[in-house]
């Protein structure tokens, strides 16, 4: 079958016009992956094209790039699926990471953030009988986290990293959860308190689910971040706006069955945080003028007591 790849090129050694789209048209086998096509370009058509790849079997995590705007492992992406009728494919380097050349990005920030979470087990004492024994059950629970191949696709699509490169990011947070929930590790609260940091920590995730969508290994980084938030609250790490936000949400849903938007805004800001409260005033006034200020007396679901009872029953069972 014939395929046309439009590849975003970048040559740092060119003094000007160093970024361009280059078109490659070729015949490939029907079963070819996008990586097969790119290797064909490099080996048969244009040896200057730079790309990273190794295993060709979605194990090594080297060949992450964007195909038609979506981050993918190109060894796992068949041309025919995306271009059944010969549609052109746009191939670009991953996002949120500096490009070194063509389709190769600089992963040093990615690995620096991995290092930041101390990605190794930290037991407090030596094992009693030569080795630490972890139960099968506890390891099975970690299988999703351990599936990570560090390809960086989640980082490429993270909507927070787009605006703030200090955010530790989905890959490092998912990796952190792999150690937080490992029974052999004894630094759980230190890890959680550190990740709970307001600047770039776990509460900066917007829950946009881009990472869940693009992860080729089902790690679901955002779900791992949600686990970390829940556990951080359980161990009493509560001095964050994120905690106040979810706590206020729970209180208003439990009390009224519905969300009380005014209460959420005030309590998330912190009811004693005068600067954050003052910051809400102009927006509140504009909303008031336009008749869209949420009601001060919150809406309640009919039979809202039933929800209160459910919350109580869940608390008692736990």
């Amino acid at each position: 079958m014939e395929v046309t790849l439009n590849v975003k090129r970048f040559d740092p050694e060119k003094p000007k016009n160093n970024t361009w789209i280059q078109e490659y048209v070729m015949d490939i086998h029907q079963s070819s992956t996008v990586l097969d096509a790119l290797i064909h370009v490099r080996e048969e058509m244009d040896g200057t094209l730079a790309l990273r790849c190794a295993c060709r079997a979605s194990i090594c995590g080297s060949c992450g790039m964007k195909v038609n705007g979506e981050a993918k492992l190109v060894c796992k992406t068949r041309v025919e699926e995306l271009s059944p009728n010969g549609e052109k494919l746009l191939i670009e380097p991953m996002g949120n990471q500096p490009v070194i050349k063509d389709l190769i990005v600089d992963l040093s920030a990615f690995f620096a953030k991995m290092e930041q979470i101390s990605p190794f087990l930290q037991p407090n004492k030596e094992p009693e009988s030569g080795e630490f024994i972890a139960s099968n059950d506890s390891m099975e629970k970690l299988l999703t986290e351990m599936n990570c191949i560090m390809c960086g696709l989640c980082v490429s699509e993270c909507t927070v990293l787009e605006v703030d490169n200090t955010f530790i990011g989905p890959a490092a947070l998912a990796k952190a959860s792999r150690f937080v929930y490992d029974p052999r590790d004894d630094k759980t609260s230190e890890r959680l308190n550190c990740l709970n940091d307001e600047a770039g920590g776990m509460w900066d995730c917007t829950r946009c689910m881009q990472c869940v969508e693009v992860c080729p290994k089902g790690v679901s980084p955002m779900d791992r971040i949600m686990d970390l938030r829940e556990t951080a609250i359980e161990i009493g790490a509560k001095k964050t706006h994120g905690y106040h936000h979810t706590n206020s949400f729970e209180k208003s849903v439990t009390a009224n069955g519905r969300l009380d938007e005014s209460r959420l805004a005030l309590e998330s800001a912190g009811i004693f945080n005068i600067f954050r409260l003052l910051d809400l005033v102009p927006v509140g006034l504009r909303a008031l003028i336009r008749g869209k200020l949420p009601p001060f007396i919150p809406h309640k679901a009919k039979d809202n007591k039933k929800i209160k009872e459910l919350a109580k029953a869940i608390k008692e069972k736990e």
Partner: protein
Amino acid sequence: MKYAFYPGCVARGGTPELLSSSMAVLKELDIEVEELTKAGCTGAGVLQEKNPLLGDTINVRTLAMAEEKNLSIMTLCSTCQGVLSQANHKVKKDSKYLAKINDLLKEEGYEYKGTTEVKHLLWILVEDYGLDKLESHFTTKLSNLKFAPFYGCYMVRPSEALGFDEKPERKMYLEKVIESVGAEAIEFPGKFSCCGFPVLFINQKNSLKMVSNNTGSAKDLGADAMVTPCPLCHLNLDGYQGKARSNNRGDKADLPIIHMPQMIALAMGLEKKDIGLGRHIVSAKEVVNKI
């Protein structure tokens, strides 16, 4: 056509114009709705950070209410749609978890069997009502207008829970509806982006950068307004656009954020008070003038 109606908290709170315009459109289309008045808030994914079981239980309770009535649920909010779909997907995949939740719900007499379908008004218009039939209700073509589509994260992710495997075209419905009113849907790369609302009260700086990037780039691409099926996106992109644009781009708020039902109501020529464009923080006057 009849649906179990789940308007969501924000349509009854910060965006009353979404509710009034939706009700006016439904009346014009003769789509009947019965509100689930006992249903609780979905938790928006926020309650789930602290108490996932409570969030799922409240949502399964809502699904069971609709199941009792043998009706599909109609939502007006991307977040409600997403969170209800996620809970539905989770219990359909995990019968043990469903049994645990049903056990909590039995005192109130609910038992969810897993048959309820949850559909945003956008999906209902395209899949159940039909765009040809919808177009027959339009009295005004909005052909002078260019709209940037903005879906809201939970209308498109996670695609598995939203049934995109069977219906991948759901990712294009907003453009289809924009085109059905005669307007142009611009190619907007940010259409599946995050509006920043979830971190508005947590990291406002980041949230405002997202508002500025989304509204600024849509304006640069020639959009007259942005159209969204999500009231939370509307709240952030409309309410905080002034501050976001001045802090990040040094310009002014100039992109009206229109609720999807408002756009339809405009094409139907419905009453101004129901459409409620006067309630927006960023003025939509120029949009109306161009019609």
